[in-house]
């Protein structure tokens, strides 16, 4: 086993993961191929998902900052350009959820406006700006303004979730996921611009989700809510595999929040942040660590029952990042042990040592479901992002 706390190990791992996607997924006619098999074969060349398009900007912006602009600035600009070329609707200001792109010909597949998507647009422009792409400054502010106008509800201090393509109607569903990623994006926007309004918003979202909303659902963050932000215990109860809105508590989101709270604390020393981060991480691992086969389960219900025993790559990645942040913050060696334990598991089961990058979903006993390494939305943003985060605290 490698030393998972070694900087060089993490840098090498990021490089190897990056090389799985780069340069094979670049589409010279615009954007990137989003669907890759385990060996890197492109199995859908035309479908483009906003979540992948934005995460690719993040991946290349980080690559620019860590591995140099010579190799990665051109693909970063290529990735950023596609947000406008492929996704932006100048008439509505929105970014299309799914489009097809065939040799430069764009067609709309799903124009729904998702707050989750805009959070990633904001994250993408923030990281592009931090990588020195000055052209990202204006769309960064425009995206914040758009979220403010279309999704933010000051009476709740949180963002609504989804609207029709022409913004004529906002759906009643409310969720924590979009707000968590909005918080992540606000922190990045603050780091890129140092504008206080972004930090204020990050704090507000963090408080309202991890304290207020959690208090309404047994001390942990439930995923789904009605439009007045009362808990919706039934949403998708029958559809446990819904990829963006699964039923149950999500241990991966509890640990991801732990990480975000500690990032927030770097900029604003609020006394509740570190204790709450610790609680959330400890709860997630206590309730969802698989003592038999290793790894963290995907979901558990109100009775602490494991409702989805699959293992998702991003849950493991976000959790080792949170463990490292907590280890550094608290000085408690127990968190480094957790960090090593999660990495050890991921290294055995998730990392593709032959082709690079991580597998996406495994069964409870760590068997593969399919050979689709990166369908829409993955692009290993979580795994590389987690490694960068650890590099920052080592």
């Amino acid at each position, binding site marked *: 086993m490698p030393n998972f706390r070694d900087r060089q190990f993490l840098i090498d791992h990021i490089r190897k993961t990056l090389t799985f996607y780069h340069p094979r997924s670049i589409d010279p006619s615009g954007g990137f191929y989003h669907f890759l098999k385990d060996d890197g074969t492109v199995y859908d060349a035309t479908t483009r998902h906003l979540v992948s398009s934005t995460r690719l900007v993040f991946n290349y912006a980080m690559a620019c900052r860590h591995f140099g602009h010579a190799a990665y600035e051109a693909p970063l600009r290529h990735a950023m350009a596609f947000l406008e070329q492929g996704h932006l609707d100048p008439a509505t200001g929105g970014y299309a959820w799914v489009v097809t792109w065939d040799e430069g010909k764009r067609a709309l597949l799903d124009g729904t406006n998702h707050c989750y998507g805009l959070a990633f647009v904001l994250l993408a422009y923030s990281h592009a700006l931090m990588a020195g792409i*000055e052209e990202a400054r*204006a769309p960064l502010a425009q995206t914040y303004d758009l979220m403010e106008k279309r999704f933010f509800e000051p009476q709740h201090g949180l963002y609504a979730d989804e609207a029709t393509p022409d913004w004529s109607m906002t759906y009643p569903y409310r969720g924590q996921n979009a707000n968590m990623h909005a918080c992540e994006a606000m922190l990045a926007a603050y780091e*890129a*611009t*140092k504008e206080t*309004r972004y930090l204020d918003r990050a704090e507000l979202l963090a408080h309202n989700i991890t304290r207020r909303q959690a208090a309404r659902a047994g001390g942990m963050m439930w995923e789904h809510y009605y439009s007045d932000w009362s808990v919706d215990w039934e949403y998708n109860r029958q559809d446990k595999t819904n990829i963006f809105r699964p039923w149950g508590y999500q241990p991966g989101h509890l640990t991801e929040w732990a990480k975000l709270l500690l990032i927030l604390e770097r*900029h*604003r*020393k609020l006394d509740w942040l570190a204790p709450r981060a610790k609680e959330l991480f400890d709860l997630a691992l206590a309730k969802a660590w698989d003592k038999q086969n290793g790894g963290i389960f995907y979901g558990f219900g109100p009775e602490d029952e494991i409702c989805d025993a699959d293992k998702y790559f991003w849950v493991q990645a976000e959790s080792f990042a949170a463990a490292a942040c907590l280890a550094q913050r608290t000085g408690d060696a127990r968190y480094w042990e957790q960090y090593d334990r999660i990495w050890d598991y991921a290294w055995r089961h998730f990392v593709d040592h032959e082709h690079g990058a991580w597998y996406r979903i495994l069964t409870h006993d760590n068997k593969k479901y399919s050979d689709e390494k990166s369908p829409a939305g993955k692009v290993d943003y979580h795994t590389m992002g987690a490694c960068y985060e650890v590099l920052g605290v080592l």
Partner: protein
Amino acid sequence: MTVTVRDIAREAGVSIGTVSRALKNQPGLAEETRRHVRAVAERLGYDSGKLQRRKLRKLAFLLHRQHNTLANTPFFSAVLHGVEEACRIEGIVPSFLSVGPTDPVADQLRLHDPDALLCAGFFEPELLNVFRETGKPVALIDHLADGLLSVNPDNQSGGYLATQHLIRQGRKRIAFLSGSLAHYSIRERFRGHRQALFDSGILADPHLEAMTPPGMDVEPGAYIAMQQLLSLDRPPDAVFAFNDSAALNAMRAIIDAGLSMPRDIAVVGFDDIAQAALAHPPLTTLRVDKEELGRAGVDLVLHGGGNRTLPVELVIRDSTVATQRVSA
């Protein structure tokens, strides 16, 4: 009977070609001859609208040499960026010239042979006259002068927002760090500042108005002006500087005096140049869309219309509001 080019040529005693060149402001004749021909044309009542105007192909972007310094580069290079972009879209070739009041500007311009002039920042009235006398379309960016089209950020609202923000933070002694009031933008920012004080019932204390020494660059100038403010018997607890470069240099003076921002003194700039976010602490300022100023300038010089004012936005950072606060 309508007056033709032939009539003007006969009356002025020059060839038809010379008349045409004179009226179209094309090169190839002495300036004296051009004036003579134009005077004759005007006397005879020639309708210059009949002239087939050459499509605008070349645009000279002029900057006063006093602006063409390192401290001013972040602002005007962003403006130039917008100018270049708009020109590229319109198929116009831009050129860049920095001019001073003692330069042979007319000669320098002849080398560029522009079809129109776009002038950014402050220029002395004498220089503006030289520009007018070329007879070519002229527009101003970040300046105001009689008879010339211009585009400006909303300086007065910006000054108002800056000082209002400081008042709302509980600041009692708010200084204005000024540059030369010959600059339209600085006059307007100052006016906004005073209006905000007035509306809050605060008496404007003349001690709290400091100016960079005349003729001195903003870098040493703002530092010295800030030192003067800090040496007052009752120094300010906030300062609104006329632009970001001045604010950043004022911040150096504050740090050198051993004071802490924003605890002892809050600072606001103007323009939101890239360095504002990178300062320690990051600088609260008024965001000006500098590229849009450039684009709007090109649009004005091409299509005319009225004077324009672009909105500005208050961007709050740590220089006025402490981020590191501890909650209960």
